[in-house]
């Protein structure tokens, strides 16, 4: 271990003096993460906040349930109750009000208008309409208002059908309004647990921060392992091999330095993107496990490439090519998990894919979700590393 640490320390000293190491390990991934995160994904960092003006000309129980139980219960929605349609129109009129209403200014993203007699019309099964006026500058927020109103309208239809069914069953008329209101106020016994891919997606900044970090990790680690071939080219391998140390120490030293450089690079990117651009990688312990497994995978894959390469240049060229392919397959540049089909499945042939999947799974804050990605990446590293180390050990020559 002493000789391996001596070699690793020497390598680290050399890397610290090598500007290209900073570029590959930190500057390039950080820069690309910022460019991709902000330029290619302008919605990154978007958080929904809606201000809705409500005109309740009905003042009946059906409109009140929507205002209090639906709009009132929703997070990040501010309700502005106004008395007239004209006032509501003024709030959403972009020519009158500035775009993108903010707290304290008299603007709204949408206006929802319940006409007079709405509750009575619903009870009497007469056609009724809830009007939604959207602010042109708040397309997304206005769309959400329309969706909420449509959902409520569907629920009213369901209630109406339910009440009619009850009347048929009992063979007599019931108080439709009271029954309907009671049904609407009853909490829905069915809860939908949204566990779809969309809930496990990384936000834009985090996606590209993590994607670029793992993508460049392979290049960062590569220069450590191919350093073995560089020592041969430079003639210093003869000195190392004529020293009273084992070949395992020489290999171990190179791998240790590659591991430490990879770790430092990932740690710097994690901290920099977390504090500089609010990237949310997830629980640090889970992220640390994923990062360590990713470094092992990277070292393994780079070792097998170096083990079969005839020179440092060849190892670098092949390693770069394989790193690019694995990076693209693993979805470090775009989220292939959303592509579906073969492309989505293919990401798991790459450690990059497991790393990104592990981070996405960590959105659930459940640390156990990283077990499979970590084991998969360790598997990549151990299998390829075993072959690579065996080849490299045999091939060590002055």
């Amino acid at each position, binding site marked *: 271990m002493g000789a391996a640490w*001596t070699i690793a320390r*020497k390598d680290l000293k050399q890397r610290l003096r090598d500007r290209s190491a900073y570029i590959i390990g930190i500057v390039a991934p950080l820069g690309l993460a910022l460019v991709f995160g902000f330029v290619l994904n302008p919605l990154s960092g978007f958080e929904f906040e809606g201000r809705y003006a409500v005109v309740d000309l009905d003042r009946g129980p059906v409109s009140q349930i929507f205002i209090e139980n639906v709009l009132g219960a929703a997070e990040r929605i501010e309700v502005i109750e106004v008395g007239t349609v004209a006032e509501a129109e003024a709030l959403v009129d972009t020519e009158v009000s500035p775009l993108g209403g903010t707290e304290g200014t008299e603007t709204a993203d949408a206006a929802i208008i319940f006409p007079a007699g709405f509750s009575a019309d619903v009870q009497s099964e007469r056609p009724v309409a809830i009007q939604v006026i959207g602010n042109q500058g708040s397309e997304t927020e206005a769309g959400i208002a329309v969706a909420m109103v449509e959902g409520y309208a569907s629920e009213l239809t369901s209630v109406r059908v339910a009440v009619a069914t009850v009347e048929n069953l009992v063979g007599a008329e019931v108080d439709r309004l009271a029954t309907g209101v009671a049904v609407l106020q009853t909490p829905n016994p069915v809860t939908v647990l949204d566990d779809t891919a969309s809930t496990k997606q990384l936000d834009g900044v985090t996606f590209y921060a993590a994607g670029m970090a793992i993508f460049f990790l392979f290049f960062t680690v590569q220069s450590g392992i191919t350093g073995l071939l560089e020592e041969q080219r430079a*003639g*210093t391998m*003869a*000195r190392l091999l*004529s020293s009273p140390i084992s070949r395992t120490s020489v290999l171990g030293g190179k791998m240790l330095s590659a591991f430490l450089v990879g770790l430092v690079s990932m740690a710097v990117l994690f901290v920099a993107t977390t504090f500089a651009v609010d990237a949310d990688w997830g629980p640090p312990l889970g992220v640390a496990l994923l990062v360590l497994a990713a470094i092992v995978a990277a070292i393994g894959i780079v070792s097998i490439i170096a083990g079969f390469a005839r020179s440092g240049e060849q190892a670098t060229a092949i390693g770069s090519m394989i790193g690019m392919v694995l990076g693209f397959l693993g979805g470090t540049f775009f989220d292939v998990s959303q592509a579906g089909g073969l492309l989505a499945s293919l990401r798991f042939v790459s450690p990059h894919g497991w790393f990104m999947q592990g981070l996405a799974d960590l959105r659930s804050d459940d640390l156990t979700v990283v077990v499979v990605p970590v084991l998969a990446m360790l598997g990549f590293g151990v299998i390829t590393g075993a072959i690579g180390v065996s080849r490299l050990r045999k091939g060590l*020559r*002055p």
Partner: protein
Amino acid sequence: MTVASGEPVLECSGIRKSFGDHAAVKGVGFSIAHGETYGLLGPNGAGKTTTISMISGLLEPDAGEIRLAGEPMTPDSTHTKRLVGLVPQDLAIYPDLDATENLEFFGRLQGMKGAELDRRVAEVLEIIELTDRAGDRTEQYSGGMKRRLNIGVGLLHRPTLLILDEPTVGVDPQSRNAILDSVERLGEEGMAVLYTTHYMEEAERLCDRIGIVDQGELIAEGTQADLVRIVGQRDRLTLTATGSLAATAAALGELEVVDDAGVAGDEIVLIVDQAHDHLPRILEMAARTGSMVKSVDVDSADLESVFLKLTGRALRE
């Protein structure tokens, strides 16, 4: 492991090494005593570097035995490797580290540390005359300075056997002299030295005994006097010429007074009995066979003559 004065530091016998179909070393064997400087003299490609690669544990011999201070040497003999200080032919130093960092790194690999390492690094920097530039990255050094540091790394752990593989190749005359002086001092201080070269003058100046290697075989061994005796009292006649040198050498080799003839660059080298007496005849033959002689040099027999005598070729071919 210690070696008493006069006892062999290195003993190797029957060592062979092939690369594919090419037999690089064919049964070489020799020994080096404590405090002795032994030269392996031979042209490029003779098998010198392969031989010392096996002696320093870089290559596994296909056959034969190598012992250092009585201990076998193989690529896995980490303990035995402590006895050897290797100075490879190609520079084996890190250009992005300074001289001190290079020495400290290789010293630690030899198991040195702390004050002992610091002291020895300072001593070696003095020996190789790089104390003033110790903090500069070696990429800023001249070729001679790099060569001196290359030697310094080999000396650092006070090896029992210092192996220098053509340490003066590509070095300016001033640095070359400094290197030769250093090696001479090391020999005087009692260090066993194995020195490979294809420069006859270096072998003559430095080595107590010389082994002449050609095409993977040790073809002669002994002190310089022993080796020259092989040639006898003959002279070495060197003709610098242009024209059909090979044809002229072949024709001159047929003369009864010429023992051996070979070509080295633009020179025809002849081993001749009483060269001065036969010079007119030799020059006439050279002209007749298509060579125009520009200069003539007559020397008494030396290692070059020995090599020519033993192989029929000039050392620098």
